[in-house]
């Protein structure tokens, strides 16, 4: 905690008043001597006016102009009351601590802002643009057009997304992915904005406008995240609206008691009223609960996890079950062809591969890409397939070299699937079957490795009492193998995209809340139907960002387990803070009503509780350790 900033925020006037206040306390309670009353009043009054004149001015302006009793007005009223009772140190103290509380709120806001501003610092202030004559000029980010050529110097952050024109570049992507190791980007790859150029000068051709660049999308995400409030936060807001008028009314009622009861001592009941007035601000609640969630979001962002709202932290904290996608989520997602088998004499293995590659040529599915790559690696000239037709969930059909080819699942080729797997490695094998002119010709085996940390991560999640379920489009045998290696409670296999959503709904009926974790490529529907949707992947995947509630930028399952833990700690912190503040305030109110509380206790109940709850709330900023 940066003490000197805080003291600077207070200013010399408040510090002077603190000294006077301490002296008056000493005089009243500890000193064996006394000074004349008028001297005490003068001392207190001077110090008071020094720090209170703006507060009093604002108080009456808001009352006259806006017909509202602002917090400043209530504080002014309380201090006037205390002066009337000749409680000079108390009167001064209320104002002093009110100012301290204000300074503290400003400080807390600065800390929260600072947490975000480290990302905000990556917002580019100017861009080095090369014009047609290769002369470099600095322009504002919003003036740069798509297609412009820009330079990023060593150590600078990339201002806009762009295609790399150099052969290679070393880029520090930690702000977008949480990865500490710099990543290599090669020619023609798109370098996202916000990353820092680790190496020498690079040249990029801009692909998006400033408003649509990766860094702006990330910043906007964080900003909009604040709008998605959790249940406690919405409750606090509504509570705060009626708390103040309630307490202030009670204060007035208490002050009027002596008018009706002869035995009541005026000073006693006025003190009780003042206690109520001083505690009438719910600021501690209104500030500390959102701050706890905010700190949690900040800690999560340090791990490379973006949460689109504190309501999702709440859901993650209460999570009972996670449903996982397989490819790209539990597995690395990049396939390799490991075996090609031909069952027909007149068709060679290479031809099987060639036919399959021709059909899969335009597909973006990882399996398709691996088949095409395998063909290229073997030097097989990529053929052109015509009349290519995609049969959803089954496979592709088309014509290659005047031959009718079908590529896909066993069902598609109309044969039985006899794949047995004696695989004890972390590998899951997929078989892609090929038929030539309606005859079953052979198959290609493609394997995808499970993420090395998957087992450990799922075990961690299990120990948190959260069920783990696999929902996969893969064959039953493949799913069974995964279940043998990873700690999963249930496995659904051969599920098509529509069924995925239904299965999720079914699971939600048994346990709630349920999360879905996928890589976002074709999981948009399921992601939005889960209680909380978690997407794996770079900030570049637009579909993932739109559909998901939580984004794991580095795709690590261990990070997911850590994130769940942080979510729980954050939620518990917010709730415990809430309860603590409520209890203290109610306790002091009761004591005040009964006449056992003095103004010092009230000040603690207001400013003391504020400082305590805010410091407690900010602990969540460090939860990533």
């Amino acid at each position: 905690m940066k003490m000197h900033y805080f003291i600077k925020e207070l200013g010399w006037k408040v510090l002077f008043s603190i000294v006077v206040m301490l002296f008056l306390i000493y005089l009243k309670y500890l000193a064996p001597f006394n000074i004349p009353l008028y001297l005490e009043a003068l001392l207190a009054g001077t110090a008071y006016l020094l720090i209170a004149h703006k507060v009093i001015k604002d108080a009456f302006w808001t009352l006259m102009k806006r017909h509202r009793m602002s917090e400043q007005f209530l504080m002014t009223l309380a201090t006037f009351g205390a002066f009337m009772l000749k409680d000079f140190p108390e009167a001064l103290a209320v104002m002093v601590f009110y100012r301290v509380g204000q300074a503290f709120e400003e400080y807390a806001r600065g800390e929260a802002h600072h947490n975000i501003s480290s990302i905000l610092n990556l917002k580019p202030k100017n861009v080095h643009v090369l014009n047609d004559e290769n002369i470099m000029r600095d322009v504002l980010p919003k003036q740069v057009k798509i297609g412009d050529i820009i330079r990023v110097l060593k150590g600078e952050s990339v201002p806009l997304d762009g295609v790399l024109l150099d052969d290679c570049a070393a880029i520090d992507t930690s702000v977008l992915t949480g990865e500490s190791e710099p990543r290599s980007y090669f020619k023609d790859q798109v370098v996202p904005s916000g990353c820092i150029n680790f190496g020498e000068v690079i040249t990029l051709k801009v692909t998006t406008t400033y408003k649509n660049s990766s860094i702006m999308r990330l910043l906007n995400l964080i900003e909009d995240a604040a709008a998605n409030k959790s249940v406690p936060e919405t409750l606090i807001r509504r509570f705060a609206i009626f708390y103040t008028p309630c307490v202030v009314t009670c204060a007035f009622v208490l002050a009027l008691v002596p008018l009706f009861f002869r035995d009541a001592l005026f000073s006693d009941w006025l003190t009780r009223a003042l206690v109520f007035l001083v505690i009438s601000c719910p600021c501690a609640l209104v500030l500390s609960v959102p701050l706890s969630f905010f700190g949690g979001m900040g800690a999560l962002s340090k791990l490379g996890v973006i949460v689109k709202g504190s309501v999702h932290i709440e859901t993650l904290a209460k999570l009972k079950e996670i449903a996982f996608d397989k490819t790209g989520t539990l597995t690395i997602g990049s396939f390799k062809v490991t075996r090609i088998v031909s069952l027909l004499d007149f068709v060679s293995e290479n031809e099987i591969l060639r036919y399959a590659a021709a059909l899969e040529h335009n597909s973006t599915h990882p399996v398709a890409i691996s088949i095409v790559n395998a063909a290229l690696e073997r030097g097989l000239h990529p053929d052109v397939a015509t009349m290519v037709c995609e049969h959803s969930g089954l496979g592709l059909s088309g014509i290659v070299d005047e031959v009718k080819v079908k590529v896909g699942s066993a069902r598609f080729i109309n044969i039985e699937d006899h794949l047995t797997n004696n695989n004890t490695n972390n590998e899951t094998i997929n078989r892609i079957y090929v038929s030539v002119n309606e005859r079953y010709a052979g198959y290609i085996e493609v394997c995808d490795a499970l993420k090395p940390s998957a087992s450990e991560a799922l075990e961690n999640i299990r120990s948190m009492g959260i069920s783990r379920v696999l929902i996969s489009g893969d064959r039953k045998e493949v799913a069974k193998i995964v279940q043998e290696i990873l700690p999963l409670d249930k496995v659904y296999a051969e599920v098509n995209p529509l069924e995925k959503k239904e299965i999720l709904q079914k699971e939600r009926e048994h346990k709630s809340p349920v999360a879905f974790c996928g890589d976002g490529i074709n999981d948009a529907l399921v992601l939005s139907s889960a209680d909380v949707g978690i997407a794996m992947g770079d900030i570049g995947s637009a579909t993932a960002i739109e559909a998901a509630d939580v984004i794991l930028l580095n795709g690590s399952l261990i990070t997911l387990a850590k994130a769940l833990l942080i979510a729980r700690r954050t939620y518990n912190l917010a709730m415990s803070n809430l309860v603590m503040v409520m209890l203290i305030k109610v306790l002091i109110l009761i004591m005040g009503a009964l006449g056992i509380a003095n103004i010092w206790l009230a000040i603690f109940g207001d400013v003391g509780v504020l400082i305590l709850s805010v410091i407690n709330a900010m602990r969540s900023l460090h939860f990533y350790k």
Partner: protein
Amino acid sequence: MKVRMDIDGIDCPHCAAKLESLMQKEFGDANLNFAMGSLVVDTTIEDEEAVLEKALSIARNFEDGISIELRD
């Protein structure tokens, strides 16, 4: 269309909440983040300067000393 602005000068989170509801009444969808000092408004008004002017007038009527700027 979302208009993003930086807002400064609100002391108390309670007041921030009150100002936010005033903005919501005017613009339909508005979000004031006290900790970040940001005001984001989702409105059909095309002109960003007009939105800023409206927001400023609401803020000035509410309390003294609030400043709002367009985020560039």
